């Protein structure tokens, strides 16, 4: 006899697949979007460190690049922590869809 759907669920709702949260694209929650302004960036990596997700992209040379908008929820912590250059922020928050 074939099993009913609910009989096939893993016991205790344990997720047996490692790294499966990558499938959950939380970027859809975002209402504010961080914008990176490269000329104001001093590559301090504060944004990378403070990001509660892993949405600050870093290249092979260890330099900061753009954002991963699939997962960035738009919390704005990176923009708040960004020291910028000579008083100009390298990350600013913009309203999504504008």
């Amino acid at each position, binding site marked *: 006899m074939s099993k009913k759907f609910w009989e096939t669920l893993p016991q205790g709702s344990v997720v047996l697949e*490692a790294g499966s949260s990558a499938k959950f694209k939380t970027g859809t929650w975002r209402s504010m979007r961080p914008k990176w302004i490269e000329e104001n960036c001093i590559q301090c990596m504060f944004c990378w460190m403070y990001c509660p997700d892993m949405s600050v992209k870093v290249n092979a040379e260890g330099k900061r690049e753009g954002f991963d908008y699939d997962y960035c929820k738009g919390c704005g912590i990176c923009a708040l922590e960004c020291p910028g250059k000579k008083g100009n922020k390298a990350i600013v928050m913009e309203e999504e869809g504008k």
Partner: protein
Amino acid sequence: MGKIVAVTGNEACAYALKQINPDVCAAYPITPATDLMQRFSGYVSNGQVDTELVLVESEHSAMSACIGAAAAGGRVATATSSQGLALMWEMLYIAAGTRLPIVMPLVNRALSAPLNIHGDHSDGMGARDTGWIQIYSENAQEAYDNLVQSFRIAEHLEIRVPAMVCMDGFIVSHSIERVEYIDDADVKNFVGKFQAVHPLLDLEHPKSYGPLILTDLYHEYKRAQHEVMTKVPGVVLEVAAEFEKMTGRKYGLFEEYRLEDAEIAIVVMSSAAGTTKDIIDQYREKGVKVGLLKPRMFRPFPFTQIAEALKHVNAIAVLDRADSFGGYGPLFSEIAGAVMSMDHKPAMINKIFGLGGRDYLPEQAEQVINELIKISETGKVGAIKEYIGVRE
């Protein structure tokens, strides 16, 4: 052959835990369960067990630590009472929903307010819907035996559900009784080696516990959790049969005492069953066909088996050592649920007794049996729910 000792219920349960030697115990003291874990902590300090004893700052933390340790892949136990169990409330559901086979002696005690430290079933009944297995014990011997069996039941690979082993606070936990201990090697062999299912510490197979399950799957997980409970009675009986082979002591889903040919019956759990049996013997000598049914497994509740055991009875009194204010007592509701499926429905009355450790006296059992005789003769039931042993 084990040894025969004179011990309290708490002492016997602490000794069972020593023999079982769990990997982790996280506990917080609360009367009347304090003494159980205090004795066990002595075994830890003296190196008689190699359990990691985690002394936490509350029962909420105790159950949380137990959940973590069980998810990590350990055999885990704790003990509590009353307010302690109440403080564990949200974690009880998490332990059961996550299917972690934690074992917990629950030394039944009344709930505040007013503040009271003595025995009744208010705490256990409050946790009846948490998804834990609940087994109630009449005396210290049963508490010890049930505790040994509960590890096998909870950890059974078809079940993996946490289990509470209940005994009446002070009446059993602090009274010295004759108890037969099983040999250490036999307990060890009976309980067996712990088999972890999806342990977090298996680093080769990374996994996550406690995901967010919303409207698309929650209903299905709960359906699956109910299904597991339907398998528990079979496992409880299987474990009891093996236990009987080892000790000669027989356990079922409930105990029937002189019930086979009874016309009237009392349903009562835990220590009050002992007193009731004595009074039943006295009435039997007078020719009154009265019997007793003592539920052992309250969760899952064995509805069909109990209906079968009570089918020939004309009148039933269900004695609850807990109340549901504005409702019937919790045990009465379950028995009424069992009776619902019967063709011939007996008359039923509900007596609330012994709250906050009020003594259950032989006269109260007599009073109930006299009322049952009258109901059986006249077919007339007065008040369905009443308090007995209350000062008027």
